C-alpha cells in the first residue's frame, strides 16, 4: 500500500546505522543482563504477550463451556469446579500478568525515554529487577495453576479465599511479587519524567503519552503497596488464621474488600490511562494535526489518577458498607465521567479538519473511541445507585469492564504496537492485513460483549456455570464472537511476525510523527540518539516549516 506522506515537519532519513540496540551485542547473556530500556521493553513485550495468550486460552475455554447448557468442550465434560478455575485464571492472568504490566512494561519502557530525549530510564537496573520480578511472579502464578489451581475469582474475596482448598496462597504470593514489579516500574517512570527530560523540554512540552504514563506511574506507586499489605494479610489469614478477615475469630470479611478495592479501583486506571495515553499519540499523528486541548488532556490524565483513589467503594454498593459511604462513593464516581469525556471530545476535535489516513493504528484508535464510549457510558448505569442494585454482580458488569479493559486498553495496546513496531523492529508490516485485523477485532469484540449487557440486565449473575435456558442464544452469540476475536489476534500476530522475516526497511519516521522517538533511527541505536536532542517546538506541531536536513 502506498504510504501517506506527512504534511508537517519531517526529518529526512539518514543512512541506517550499522549497529543498533538489537545487534550491538549478541547472545543470551547480553539480553538477560541488559539494562537497556529498549531490550527490557522487548522482553516485557514477549512476556506479557505470552501471558495474554495464556489468559486468552482461558477466556476461550470459559466461553466454550458456556456455549451450551451441557458444558461440553469437544465432548469433554467441564465440571463446575473446572469452570470456576477457568474464569479465575483468566481474570488473574489477564489483570496481573497482562494488562497491568503490558503497556507500562513493554511499550512505555521502549518509547518513554525516547520521547523525553533521554538515554535510558532513571534506574536501569531497577528496571531489569522489575522485569525479573515479573518473571518470578509469572512462574509462581503458573505453578500455582499447575500444582492445584485457584477457584476464588481474581478478586480473592474473603472468607471464601481463606477457606477454599487449592493453591490460593501461592497465587496471592505471585500477585504480591507482581505488585512490587509494578511499583518499581512506576517509580522508575516518575523519576525519569522528573529528571531526564531533554534540555528545553518543559512539563507542557512532553508528549501526552508521557503525561498519561506519568499519571499511571503515580497510581502504581501510591496504590500498589496497599494491595501488597492486603495480600500479606490474606496469606497470613489463610495459613495462620490470624483473625483479621475471618468473622469466626472476630475479623471482618468486608474489610478485605475495602483494602482490595482501594488498590484495585486505582488499578483499573493503571489499565485504562496507558490506553488513553497511546490514543493521544495516534490521533494527532494520523490526523496530521496538532492535538486539540493539550493541557486539558494532560490535566484530565492527572485528575483521573487522583479521582481513582476516592471511588473504590462503588464496587461495594450492595456489599455491606454503610449507606452514607455508598451515597458518597456514588457521587464521587460520577466525577470520573468528566475527565473521560473531556479527553474523548478533545480527540474528536483533533480529527476535525485533519488530514486523516486510516493506517492500522488509526483504525484501532477509532475503534477505541467507540468502544471506550460504550464502556464509559455503561459505567453510568453502574454508578447510579438505583440501577446498580439490579445490575451489579451480573454480566452487565462483566461486559462493562471488558469494554473498558479490553475494548479500550487492549485495543489501544494493539494500535500502539502497530504504531511503534517499525521503531522497535525496523520493519514495516503488511498494512492491508493489519487493517483487516483491526476491522475483525472491532466486529468480534462487539459480537462477544454486546450480548453480555443484555444477559446482565436480564438478570444473569456473573461467574455462573449453569444458566437458564432462555439465556442460551445470547451465550452462543457471545461465544462465536470470542472466536472472531481469536481470529483477529491470530492475524495480528501473523502480520507482525511475518514482518520480521524480511530485512529492515522501516524509515525513521514512517507515520510523520512529531515526537522525539521518530527522530532517531529505526531501530534506535543503543544510546538512543546520535546527538542529545534539544526540543525546539511544542509537541504535535504540524505546521509546515523548512526541512532542516
Amino acid at each position: 500500500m502506498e504510504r501517506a506522506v506527512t504534511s508537517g515537519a519531517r526529518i529526512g532519513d539518514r543512512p541506517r546505522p550499522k549497529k543498533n540496540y538489537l545487534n550491538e551485542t549478541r547472545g543470551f547473556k547480553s539480553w538477560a543482563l541488559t539494562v537497556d530500556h529498549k531490550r527490557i521493553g522487548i522482553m516485557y513485550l514477549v512476556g506479557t504477550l505470552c501471558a495474554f495468550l495464556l489468559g486468552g486460552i482461558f477466556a476461550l475455554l470459559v466461553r466454550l463451556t458456556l456455549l451450551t447448557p451441557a458444558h461440553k468442550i469437544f465432548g469433554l465434560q467441564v465440571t463446575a469446579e473446572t469452570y470456576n478455575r477457568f474464569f479465575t485464571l483468566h481474570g488473574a492472568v489477564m489483570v496481573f500478568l497482562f494488562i497491568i504490566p503490558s503497556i507500562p512494561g513493554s511499550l512505555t519502557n521502549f518509547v518513554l525515554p525516547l520521547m523525553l530525549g533521554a538515554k535510558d530510564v532513571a534506574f536501569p537496573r531497577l528496571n531489569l529487577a522489575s522485569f525479573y520480578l515479573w518473571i518470578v511472579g509469572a512462574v509462581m502464578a503458573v505453578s500455582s495453576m499447575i500444582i492445584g489451581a485457584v477457584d476464588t475469582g481474581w478478586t480473592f474475596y474473603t472468607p471464601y479465599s481463606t477457606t477454599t482448598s487449592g493453591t490460593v496462597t501461592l497465587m496471592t504470593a505471585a500477585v504480591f511479587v507482581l505488585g512490587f514489579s509494578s511499583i518499581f516500574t512506576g517509580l522508575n517512570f516518575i523519576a525519569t519524567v522528573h529528571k531526564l527530560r531533554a534540555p528545553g523540554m518543559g512539563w507542557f512540552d512532553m508528549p501526552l503519552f508521557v503525561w498519561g504514563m506519568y499519571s499511571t506511574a503515580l497510581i502504581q506507586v501510591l496504590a500498589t503497596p496497599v494491595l501488597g499489605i492486603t495480600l500479606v494479610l490474606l496469606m497470613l489469614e489463610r495459613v495462620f488464621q490470624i483473625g483479621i478477615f475471618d468473622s469466626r475469630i472476630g475479623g471482618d470479611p468486608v474489610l478485605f474488600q475495602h483494602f482490595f478495592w482501594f488498590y484495585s479501583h486505582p488499578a483499573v486506571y493503571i489499565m485504562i490511562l496507558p490506553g488513553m495515553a497511546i490514543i493521544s499519540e495516534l490521533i494527532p499523528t494520523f490526523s496530521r494535526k496538532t492535538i486539540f486541548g493539550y493541557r486539558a488532556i494532560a490535566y484530565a490524565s492527572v485528575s483521573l489518577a487522583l479521582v481513582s483513589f476516592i471511588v473504590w467503594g462503588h464496587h461495594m454498593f450492595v456489599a455491606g458498607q454503610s449507606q452514607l459511604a455508598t451515597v458518597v462513593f456514588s457521587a464521587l464516581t460520577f466525577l470520573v465521567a468528566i475527565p473521560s469525556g473531556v479527553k474523548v471530545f478533545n480527540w474528536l476535535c483533533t480529527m476535525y479538519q485533519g488530514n486523516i489516513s486510516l493506517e492500522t493504528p488509526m483504525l484501532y484508535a477509532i475503534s477505541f473511541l467507540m468502544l471506550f464510549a460504550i464502556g464509559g457510558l455503561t459505567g453510568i448505569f453502574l454508578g447510579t445507585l438505583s440501577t446498580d442494585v439490579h445490575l451489579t454482580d451480573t454480566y452487565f458488569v462483566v461486559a462493562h469492564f471488558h469494554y473498558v479493559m479490553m475494548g479500550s486498553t487492549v485495543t489501544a495496546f494493539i494500535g500502539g504496537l502497530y504504531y511503534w513496531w517499525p521503531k522497535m523492529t525496523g520493519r514495516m508490516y503488511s498494512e492491508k492485513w493489519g487493517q483487516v485485523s483491526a476491522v475483525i477485532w472491532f466486529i468480534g469484540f462487539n459480537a462477544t460483549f454486546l450480548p453480555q449487557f443484555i444477559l446482565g440486565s436480564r438478570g444473569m449473575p456473573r461467574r455462573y456455570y449453569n444458566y437458564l435456558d432462555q439465556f442460551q442464544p445470547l451465550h452462543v452469540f457471545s461465544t462465536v464472537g470470542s472466536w472472531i476475536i481469536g481470529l483477529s489476534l491470530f492475524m495480528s500476530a501473523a502480520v507482525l511476525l511475518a514482518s520480521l522475516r524480511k530485512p529492515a526497511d522501516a524509515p525513521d519516521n514512517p507515520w510523520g510523527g512529531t515526537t522525539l522517538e521518530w527522530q532517531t533511527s529505526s531501530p534506535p541505536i543503543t544510546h538512543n540518539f546520535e546527538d542529545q536532542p534539544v526540543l525546539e517546538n511544542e509537541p504535535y506541531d504540524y505546521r509546515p516549516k523548512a526541512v532542516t536536513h
Partner: protein
Amino acid sequence: MDWLRAWMMPPQGSEFAKEIDFVYMALFWMSVLLFLMIAIPSVYFAWRYRYKPGRVTPHQTHNTTLEVIWTVGPLLLCVGIFFWGLNGWMKYSVAPGESMEISVTAKQWLWQFEYPDGSRTINDIHVPVNKPVKFTMTSEDVLHDFYVPDMRVKHDIIPGRYTQIWFTPTVLGPHNFTCAEYCGKDHSGMKGNLTVDNDADFAKWMETGGTEWEDYFNGKDPKKTPADWGKITYERVGCNSCHTTDGTKSKGPSWKGVYGSMVQLNNGTSVLADEAYIRESMMQPQAKVVKGFDPIMPTFQGLLKPNQANGLVAYIESLK
C-alpha cells in the same frame, strides 16, 4: 418501546422494578444519544477529512469555551443522574415498619428461610402480594448475595453480620431468586423459587408450616414417615437442647422408651405416657412435671404447627 424494555429486563414483579426500569431506559436512550455523538463524528471526520497529500491542517490548539462546555455540561448531567439514582435507592434502602420479616440464612449452597412464626423452608418462599416483606440475612460460611431479579433487589450476605433488603411484590406467581456473590462450586446452583400468593393462598400455605416437609423429602424418598419429620422438628425447634433420645439424662427426661410407659411425676402420682400426655406436655408443660426435673420447659403452644406436633408424637413413639 415496551418490547425493548421487556427484552432487556426481567419481568417486573414490584413497584421498584417499574421505577428502576424507567431510570434504566432513560439512561439507555441517553447513552445511545451520547454514543452517536461520539461515533458519528469520528466516522464522519475520518471520511470527510480523509488523507490528501499536501493538505495543510489548521493549527487549532484549544478552545476554552468548548472545554468549559464539555466539562460543565456532563458535570451537570451527572449531578442530575446521581440525585435521580439516589432518590430511587433511598426508597429501596429503608424498609417500612409494618413489613413481614423473613430471616435468611445462606450457606454453601442452599437458602434457609424462617418466618415470624418459626416455620422454616429451604430454597422456597411464599410471600403475600402487595405487602412489604423484609429479609434479614446472614451467612454461615462465605459471602453470598440474595438477588431477586424480578424485584430488582440484591444484597450481599456476610458471615457474622446481618444485612437487609425489602420489597413489595405486586405480581402473583413464581419468581426466581439466586445467589449473586461468588461462593464456590455450586454458586450457580444456589437458587430457588419465590411465589407471590394472594392472601388466602398465603394463609393456607403458612398453615401447613411451610413446604419444608414436602421439600425435604422430595425426590429422595417420598415414603418418609411422620417420625422422620418429627426427628427434623426435634432438632429444628430445639427439643434436643434438653431431651436426649438415647436414655441419658439431660435438663429434661430422655425420650427413649417413654412412649407407653408409666411416668413418675413430682407430685407423687404416675401417668401413662400416651399421645394425649405427650401433647399436653408440649402445650402445657407445667401441668405434669416428671419426678426429678425442674419445671423449666416453656410452652410450645402456637409455636408448633399441627404437622410438627404430629411428627414429634410419631417420633417419640418410634423411640419405644
